């Protein structure tokens, strides 16, 4: 990997870190900004994960909302039924969701392109119904909806203030930092994976499975690995989502969520990490913006759908691709080495 990209990555990480730290000392900002900011972070993590499997190995998943649901419900059940501290449930949620991703990834090997998209879409559709299944009450015990509010195992139970490093934070702030802190770590992890051998293997699989196999890349391993990793990411996002709301119900993760995630990944630009923030911002803020235009029934969706179609037609490679194209005259002049 060129030193250039190493420098770029380092600068990104530092900048993001600085941003978060600065936030800590920012003048008192409205509380709702933190809720929306945390939700943005949740989308960021999930789309990051989705990008790994769809952007880097070319397997289209329309089911990542289901992995979010698995992670979210893992957290919810562990906190409410087993008294596990919510922060510890996050890695567990990642493992459970990752395992689910692996289990999905295996049969996914037999399916290609649209068939995989449809099969994963079916998973996303089935998940709310599965979570409502009465036969699962043995596991979920408290019924399909799980109320975490007032649970002593939640940071800031009852949305109280959280104590951290000697400072008292309102709950919303704490969730915001938690989410973005984890997002940053996961971004670095993703970057490390993708710049190393697994990343090269992923890209090889995406570009040509045949060529990859001939070069000695074990396609099946890397495809399922990609699924597992991306599902783990989605699971973490789901876990944070539930923690922020202190509530989980089967309809929190509808099929449309999976569609939204894919839209976010596409807008970001598949196969590139830099646009993920833009993709997350798109799916988070465009609906809000559309509601601002008019609260009348149906108008927000009309605006959102129209915007989506426009982006597909005008920016088919997503924001990252668009930026790459827009900035390429500059970069090719300044750097003569070929970019990775």
């Amino acid at each position, binding site marked *: 990997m060129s030193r250039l990209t190493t420098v*770029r990555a380092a600068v990104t990480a530092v900048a993001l870190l600085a941003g978060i730290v600065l*936030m800590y000392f*920012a003048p008192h900002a*409205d*509380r709702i*900004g933190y809720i929306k900011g945390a939700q943005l972070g949740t989308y960021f993590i999930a789309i990051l994960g989705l990008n790994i499997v769809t952007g880097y190995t070319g397997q289209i998943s329309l089911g990542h909302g289901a992995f979010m649901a698995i992670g979210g419900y893992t957290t919810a059940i562990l906190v409410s039924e087993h008294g596990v501290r919510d922060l510890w449930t996050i890695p567990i949620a990642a493992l459970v969701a990752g395992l689910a991703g692996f289990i999905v990834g295996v049969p996914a090997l037999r399916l290609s392109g649209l068939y995989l998209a449809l099969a994963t879409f079916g998973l996303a559709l089935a998940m709310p119904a599965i979570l409502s299944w009465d036969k699962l009450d043995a596991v979920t015990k408290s019924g399909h909806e799980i109320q975490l509010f007032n649970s002593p195992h939640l940071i800031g139970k009852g949305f109280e203030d959280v104590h951290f490093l000697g400072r008292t934070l309102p709950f919303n702030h704490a969730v915001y930092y938690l989410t973005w802190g984890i997002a940053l770590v996961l971004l670095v992890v993703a970057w490390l994976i993708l710049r190393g051998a697994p990343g090269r293997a992923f890209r090889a699989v995406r570009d040509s499975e045949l060529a990859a196999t001939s070069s000695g890349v074990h396609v099946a391993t890397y495809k399922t690995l990609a699924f597992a990793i991306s599902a783990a990411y989605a699971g973490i996002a789901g876990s944070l989502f539930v923690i922020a709301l202190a509530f989980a*119900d089967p*309809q929190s993760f509808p099929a449309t969520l999976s569609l939204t995630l894919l839209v976010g990944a596409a807008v970001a630009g598949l196969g590139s990490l830099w646009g993920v923030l833009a993709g997350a911002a798109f799916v988070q803020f465009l609906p809000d913006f559309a509601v601002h235009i008019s609260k009348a*029934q149906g108008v927000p969706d009309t605006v959102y759908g129209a915007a989506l179609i426009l982006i597909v037609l005008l920016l088919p490679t997503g924001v990252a691709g668009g*930026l790459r194209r827009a900035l390429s005259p500059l970069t090719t002049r300044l750097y003569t080495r070929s970019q990775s």
Partner: protein
Amino acid sequence: MPRVLLIATAALLVLGIPVAFGGTQADPGITPTSIHIGGTVPLSGSAQAFQSVAKGADAYFKYVNARGGVNKRKINYEYLDDQYIPSETVRQTRVLVEDKDVFAIFNSLGTEQNEATRPYLNTKDVPQLFVATGGTTFGRDRQQYPWTIAYQPTYIAEGAMYGSYIRRTQPKAKIAILYQDDSYGGDLVKGLERGLGPRKSNIVSRVSYSATDDNVQSQIARLRSSKAGILMLFATPKFVIQAYQYVNGLGWKPKIFVNAVSSASNVMVLSSSQGKNKRVEGSISIVFLKDPNDPKWAKDPAVLLYRKIMKKYARGSNIKDVYNLYGMSVAFTFVDALKHAGKSPTRASLMRAATHLNERNNPFLLPRMSVRTTSTDHYPLDQARLQRWHNGRWISFGGLLKARS
């Protein structure tokens, strides 16, 4: 360094989001000239037909504001869309409480939806007023949740009314039930069993459906094979309309009971397919509001007021939609409570007023009905009459009955 520019922008975004949303600390929703209340209703999604409860209430508040408001305060009622999804209800309610700084939560719709926000609102000491659902828990669990109060007669009470009526009039009839598989449908069934008492065994078939189903055709087919003489429809309007159609299509002729939530006359007229579907004739339900489509009330001052307010403040809304009138009734009660909360209301004083109601003049309710609450009775409405659908309209019969859980 264009990439670095990109990075810096990203950092600014992360930094800037909360600042961008920055606002000022505000009082919790009350000033000398206004009071800001909020609630959630499904403006989109499968239950969006129920949003009229908010529209009707909003229209009524506008009417009250035009007359000077309450103690010189104008009521600013804001309702957000929760798509009938409980986690969205939580999110939107937090927006209302923490961002919009509302004084109280009012008229939020849905059993699970209000259950989801109830612990939060009670912990934050925010009044959860007049929830738009008949879930018994909202009145029953007042000690655990003192900031919550219900409004309409509970589903259990309603089911019990049907049960005791059947016990009195058709003690030997076999009963089949179509019910939604949640606490709304479950409470209605529970109430029915309670009202039937020893005749509970007459229930020969009970089939549930999920709100996410597309139709209940196979459920009705199953119920039909039980050959019951009575069919209880404990379902939302969409599925009630379908049920009437399938019952008719299958040549089954049971006597039908339809729950109040779906008994709006516009729903009944649709179900009767311009009179072609005879199964609708003779259906029984309960009623506690004046139906604006009923010729009996055509000249009633309350209904005339309703029409006037709808025309002036809710242009484009469907006047035939009974949920608008429900909204006005609950808005009337809110105004009543606000008036009794003192010249400088606090959340606590409003809550006290809401739990000590003695309202006998709500024009939108049936005559002689009152809205009464005490510290041990968080069921504002606990009366109703039975009504029968005949020749295209509801005709109430019997007296005003107690509708208690």
